[in-house]
């Protein structure tokens, strides 16, 4: 018999591991996100049976299988709508959505604006390695245009393994700025973290979960195999200025646009907006309830 006692005892990380060994490469940034995720669940004292993680496809998409929570490993690019359906149907659950940068900003790029304008209470973690990992190294919309040169210069070792032709021609395109985009969508919580800084990352995930609304978290998570940006981020990652007021969206945008700096921290947060589920519930309350009998009667002659 599975007793509820199991859930009352304080959770340990090992209780949260599913027993399936991650297929990620040794050193992959995604391990850091998994650990911080575990830690955040523990710190937040969540009941794992009331947590659900929905993912898309990619190295990142493998995430849910490794955690002993409810998981849904869906199709490429649709983590957000799947998680939206789940959260709206089951507001009692704590729902995460997980994407890679390809999953989030390319094939799934159309969904973020809508999750943001609905303000559905989901914590959306984009595990951004600036590359397509699982499909072995094509550039993504967040890859720097000079990704091939960067790789060949050895700064970001490993990338020579990638798709050289596609990486080369990638220079004709520019990279997107996900934080700026999330701010333009008016997401009510916008943050960035670095998987190489686990404490901050854990704290930001916790804040994202606490935030009642759509939390967009971009986590820079180096792909050691195809685009090893650890050194780069160790050099460029800095916390947001101390005086940054996260209710100031214009300032947040300005910070998001600053070149050569990878700010981490909470760019923006608006706690005043009700979440989609709250609004839907309010909407239902305002209506007079009905029944099948009543509905059918309306059609009866």
């Amino acid at each position, binding site marked *: *018999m*599975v007793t*509820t006692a*199991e*859930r009352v005892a304080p959770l340990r990380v090992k209780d949260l591991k*599913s027993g*399936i060994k991650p297929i990620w490469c040794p050193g992959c940034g995604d391990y850091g996100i998994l650990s911080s995720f575990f830690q955040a669940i523990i710190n937040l004292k969540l*009941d*794992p*049976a*009331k947590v*659900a993680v*929905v993912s898309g*496809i990619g190295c990142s998409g*493998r995430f*849910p*299988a490794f955690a*002993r*929570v*409810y*998981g*849904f*490993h*869906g*199709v490429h690019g*649709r983590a*957000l*709508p*799947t*998680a*939206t*359906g*789940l*959260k*709206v*149907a*089951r507001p*009692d*659950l704590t729902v995460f959505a997980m994407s890679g940068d390809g999953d989030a900003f390319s094939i799934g790029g*159309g*969904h973020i*604006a*809508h999750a943001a304008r*609905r303000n559905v209470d989901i914590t959306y973690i984009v595990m951004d390695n600036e590359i397509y990992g699982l499909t072995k190294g094509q550039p993504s919309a967040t890859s720097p245009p000079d990704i091939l040169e960067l790789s060949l210069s050895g700064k970001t070792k490993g990338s020579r393994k990638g798709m050289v032709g596609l990486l080369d021609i990638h220079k004709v395109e520019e990279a997107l700025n996900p934080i700026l985009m999330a701010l333009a969508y008016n997401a009510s919580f916008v943050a960035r973290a670095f998987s190489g800084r686990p404490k901050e990352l854990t704290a930001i995930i916790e804040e994202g979960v606490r935030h009642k609304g759509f939390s967009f978290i971009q986590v820079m998570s180096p792909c050691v195999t195809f685009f090893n940006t650890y050194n780069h981020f160790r050099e460029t990652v800095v916390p947001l200025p101390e005086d940054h007021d996260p209710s100031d969206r214009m300032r947040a945008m300005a910070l998001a646009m600053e070149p050569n700096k990878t700010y981490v921290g909470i760019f923006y947060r608006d706690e005043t907006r009700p979440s989609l589920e709250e609004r*839907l519930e309010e*909407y*239902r309350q305002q*209506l*007079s*309830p*009905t*029944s*099948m*009998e009543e*509905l*059918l009667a309306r*059609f*009866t*002659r």
Partner: protein
Amino acid sequence: MSNESLVIRIGGEAGEGIVTIGETLVRIAAFSGLEVFTFRTYPAEIIGGQVMYQARIGREQVLSMGDDVDILVAANQLGHDEHIGELRPGGLLVYDSDAVTPAEGGDHLSYAVPFTQLAREINFLRGRNLIVVGFLTSLMGLPLDRAEQMVRRRLGKYKELLPSNLEALHKGYTHHQEHFAERPEFQIRPPEDGGEERLVMTGAQAIALGALAAGCRFYAGYPITPATDIMEFLSKELPRMGGTIIQAEDEIAAVTMAIGASFGGVKAMTATSGPGLALMIEALGLASMTEVPLVIVDAQRAGPSTGMPTKTSQGDLFLALYAGADEAPRFVLAPDSVEDSFYQMINAFNLAERFQMPVILLSDQAMATRVETIRPIDLSQIHQEKRRIPSLDRPEGNGYLRYALTEDGISPMAIPGMPGMTYTAEGLEHDESGAPSYVPEVHRAMTEKRFRKVETARKELHRWGLVNRWGDPQAEIAILSWGSTQSAVREAMERAAKEGILVEALFTKILLPMPDYEIRPFLEGKRAIIVPELNYQGMFAKVIEHRYSEQIIRNNIQVYRLNKYEGLPFKPGEIYAKIVEVAQRLTAGVLADRFLDEKLASV
């Protein structure tokens, strides 16, 4: 003496209230105890343009939209010109003498009525529609009090408008009484007792109500003609039933939202038309693989591509049956009437829940938009299938196996929130626990498991009420078809029966898996099968020809395809003509080119 049924058609400019006239008249008839069946067209223009509204009104159940028109009401010149050819000899043309110059001659009666001027007389130009309704109420011998009641009902809370509206109704009614003689051939008397209990609704409404009755509490959809009516209806009622509706940003979002909700334990659906269903195919495979219950309604329209959004078709059958990356089992249902749309929605949800699989329900533009009178619904008879969930007291240490290999293929499914049952619904191939696995034996076993559910279902099909068979079991001529062609087929068969041509028909409401247990015995003793379909390729005919080829060929049964691809439903006469042709061929011993009609066979 009154007629058994009458066909009235109203033609004119959209926005002029043609549809309102039709809908009001139809409801007056229905609420007087008559049976109705409607058909309408949509203009190419966003507003304006020509429309026509046709209603068949009968004393007994009306089977179809009929063939020829008994009464044509022309509200403008085009309304006259476009439809006069379909007025039957001896029929009646009613035209607005302020707007229409009728053609010379013609083997029919003509009433010139100055509708516009009558409206002017009561200083209520927008009342013209009700003047027409009043006129027709009298002409057709419908009870005035019912008409008044309907006007009241339609105005609802806008009570201040009632006097002027009633005046308009009476104006038309009196005008007919005073200027025209009573003509029984254009009357249809409601039964004295007010008729049996009936509901009056469109196919889209029947689908939405069926979903609610089945326990659906989540809907996500993206607008698309002709499926939007379902969403609009549910947007009002689902929240009142405690459920949720979301207008998604596209069809892929809509279907994945429904999958997410269903994974969460809430019965969920989406509705769309062909182009949207095409976009949902990837997610359909996901539901198949993760074994999440899902209902998708497809109100088919004419294509390919954007095609003709307001025209009907049965051309999505192959898409529904066969589309998927690799092999993604599903069920496909097709109601064959407005009434049946209600019940098949319940089957759809029950099949989805019982087998944890996606179910596609195929309706079509004509059936979703038409109004029909249907028999009362006994809610106490409706069964809501419950999801099979794992038992909470399983022996300690025994991990929960979400995809356990069971004999019937169905594995108990945990709902998030259940303690100790966490698992990942996995879109990769997986072992029993749900862990990704690419082991050849696992893929073989899981493929067989997923298909085993279909076989389990096949064994249970007879319990689900999925076949509609009628006519003379001794008949040598059979009609085998699906979906909305039923109405025209039924009526054509009645005509044939009157001519002494025996026909038996079978409509299956389940297309995947096929109900062999019904179709095999049905085919025994038949010499010819007619398969009428609203598509070019004869999709259902191909399914039949393949699945029952052994029986068909051994018994030398001739298969006659009857394909219409004009965006319009069949008329009974078209089916009837084919029945007659086949009967003559049988007598004369002239055979059909059974399978390889080169023109039609494209695979």
